[in-house]
């Protein structure tokens, strides 16, 4: 046995097993050895234990983000697997699932294998690719879904675009249902979206911007709920933004339909008013919506209608985003701000306990995609995140590991500073400047 590691003195949160107590976390050979005295004696009595003191901090299973855009292959000017996973590590994430809207899209086996290989070579986090539902994400012909799953894909999605054709969505659900993987839907009716650039409401009216009504999302969520019921397939609704969608998902779940959902931090903290001043950093799809939508989303996260919390990390170059609002692309980065933003949006106002938040950032996303990890069960890979929920820090996009600087949260002061990220017992992020024990 190589020297075991002891992460000492922190508050261990392992929501999968209902654990919330101050205890040492023991790691040996890249795996979780155990908590406190439950760790095997030969580990605890090893002559060369490396101790990382983290008094006052929280130790939890590595965070999992099932909605990121790593841009590789083909858009390396925006992000690479290397920089994107470095951003993940910096944000406390140990596992990410990446969307297939690369150039070319991840719609055949060699491309999935390419991402898996690149992640192994250059990744600072575990990377699970999501394959396209249709060839070229064109919405016309199904991809070879079983082959793609075999090659390492964990779900299928045409994210960035919806699967518009209900017949194709039905067949995709039938095929994936058999395999136990979800179809992740970017729910948005393209006709209702039109050429809209922001939420349709008073702000779009004032600013003279073309609006995207909330029902553009909700009609497709409703359609997909019916198709999931018909096929017994699993629909996972990406980045839910509208109150009406949460009502539909809640009812679908109550009917036993296999529908899960995620949202992203910006929908819980910002509204369409952030677009005021035509700032392209507040442009994303789906758009920031009304205060009523924001409140309904928080409620849906709390009651479990929205199962998990993602980021929709979507890096763009400064050239792309430095323009008038209309011309700028949709999307903002999220990996390096998500934890702080979620603590601010959900824990500080006491909507969720810290443990309930971690559940939605670890166990739940793992369940949705059938990923390993998300818990400190002895023997599981030592994917660990240590953060100080009360230590505040300031968002500086210029310090991001991501190549993307497009965040509307520049200058925000956030709680929850990441002190250590570890994948399989290997440190992927540890800020030198910050001592592990703050208090």
């Amino acid at each position, binding site marked *: 046995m190589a020297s075991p590691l002891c992460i000492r003195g922190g508050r261990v949160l392992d929501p999968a097993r209902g654990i919330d107590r101050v205890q040492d976390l023991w790691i040996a050979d890249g795996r979780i050895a155990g908590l406190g005295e439950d760790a095997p004696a030969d580990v605890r009595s090893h002559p060369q234990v490396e101790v990382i003191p983290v008094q006052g901090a929280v130790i939890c299973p590595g965070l999992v983000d099932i909605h990121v855009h790593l841009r590789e292959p083909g858009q390396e000017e925006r992000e690479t697997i290397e920089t994107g996973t470095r951003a993940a590590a910096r944000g406390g994430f140990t596992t990410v699932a990446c969307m297939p809207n690369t150039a070319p899209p991840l719609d055949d086996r060699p491309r999935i294998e390419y991402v898996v290989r690149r992640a192994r070579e250059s990744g600072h986090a575990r990377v699970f690719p999501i394959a396209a539902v249709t060839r070229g994400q064109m919405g016309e012909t199904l991809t070879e879904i079983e082959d793609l799953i075999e090659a390492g894909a964990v779900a299928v999605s045409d994210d960035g675009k919806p699967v518009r054709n209900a017949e194709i969505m039905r067949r995709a659900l039938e095929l994936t249902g058999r395999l136990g993987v979800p179809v992740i839907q970017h729910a948005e009716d393209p006709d209702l979206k039109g050429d809209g650039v922001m939420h349709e409401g008073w702000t*779009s*009216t004032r600013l003279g*911007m073309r609006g995207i009504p909330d029902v553009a999302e909700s009609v497709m969520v409703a359609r997909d709920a019916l198709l999931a019921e018909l096929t017994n397939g699993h629909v996972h609704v990406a980045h839910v933004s509208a109150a009406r969608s949460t009502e539909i998902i809640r009812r679908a779940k109550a009917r036993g339909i296999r529908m899960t959902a995620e949202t992203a931090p910006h929908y819980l903290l910002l509204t369409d008013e952030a677009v005021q001043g*035509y700032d392209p950093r507040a442009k994303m799809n789906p758009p920031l919506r009304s205060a009523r939508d924001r409140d309904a989303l928080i409620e849906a996260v709390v009651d479990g209608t929205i199962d998990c919390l993602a980021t929709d990390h979507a890096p763009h170059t400064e050239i792309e985003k430095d*323009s008038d609002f209309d011309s700028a692309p949709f999307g903002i980065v999220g990996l390096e701000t998500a934890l702080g933003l979620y603590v601010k949006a959900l824990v500080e106002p006491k909507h969720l306990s810290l443990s309930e938040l971690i559940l939605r950032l670890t166990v739940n996303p793992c369940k949705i995609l059938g990923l390993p990890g998300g818990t400190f069960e002895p023997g599981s890979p030592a994917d660990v995140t240590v953060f100080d929920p009360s230590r505040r820090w300031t968002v500086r996009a210029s310090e991001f590991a991501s190549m993307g600087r497009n965040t509307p949260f520049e200058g925000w002061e956030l709680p929850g500073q990441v002190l250590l990220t570890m994948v399989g017992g290997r440190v992927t992020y540890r800020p030198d400047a910050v001592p592990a024990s703050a208090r």
Partner: protein
Amino acid sequence: MIGTRKDLLGLEDLSAEELVSILDTARTFREVLDRPIPKVPSLRGLTAANLFFEASTRTRLSFELAEKRLSADTVNFQTSGSSVSKGESLKDTARNIEAMGIHLVVIRHQASGAPHYLARNLDAGVINAGDGTHEHPTQGLLDIFTVRERRGKIAGLRVAIIGDIMHSRVARSNIWGLTKLGAAVTIAGPPTMMPAEVERFGVTVARSVDEAMEGADVVNILRIQLERQRGTLYPSLREYARVYGVTSERLKRAKPDVIVMHPGPMNRGVEIAQDVADGKHSVILEQVTNGVAVRMAVLYLLAGHKAQGEPPVENVPTEAKQTHGEPSLHPRR
């Protein structure tokens, strides 16, 4: 009042006092236009660039004339829009303007907020000459000026605005300006062309043209451009003319001395009947003349101080500029 501002991006941002100050100044310039030599040296030595990324005849001519009447030098840039990659060209345009030492930029652009982008990135004053479907502040001002000259006031007047409110920058600027000055504004048009939560502008939404016309002091008729829309908003021009066209019959419901305005160019026989366009209530050509005076006032109020003593070319470094979350009108540095 507007002299504390660098830019004019929209009437939403102006106070009633600032609006009145522009209108009063415009009256002075309106008198200048009636002189044998209708020209003053107010902006001598300054250069204005007219950047029209979207086709325009009368607004561009009106601005150019206003600049020349104020003795400014003018340069023009016009493009059809589709040939230019919007975002990049706007940034490069801004840099070129900076390099050429231009003092005032008049911009028309198909993207709402494009003038705001320029204003954030330039020391030069920026005047919005129509941005997408957002605002057209000088058109709003000249409409209000025309009403004020005719009626002697704005407060208490009933103004009906008829047409495609959603896509109309003229409507937005008129609504902001008129309501700030105390007019009661009623709007009418196809429900498909009413933007979301439009009543929050502080206007009354009428269910028909007839209803909007009732007791109106002013009727402002918007140009309908079905060809520029997605095709799902209204069935046809014929149907539009039948349901929303302003005819002399419909005009009878307004006050006997109602004035009829249109920002031009008119679709005669569609949104406005021939006899209404040329009839005794029409002040449409007056609007055009007043437009020059109003634009002179805006140019003068934004840049007049630069012609009197400040160096002709500013050397303020651009790096320090804030680019996030600024209000759409910026105090002069």
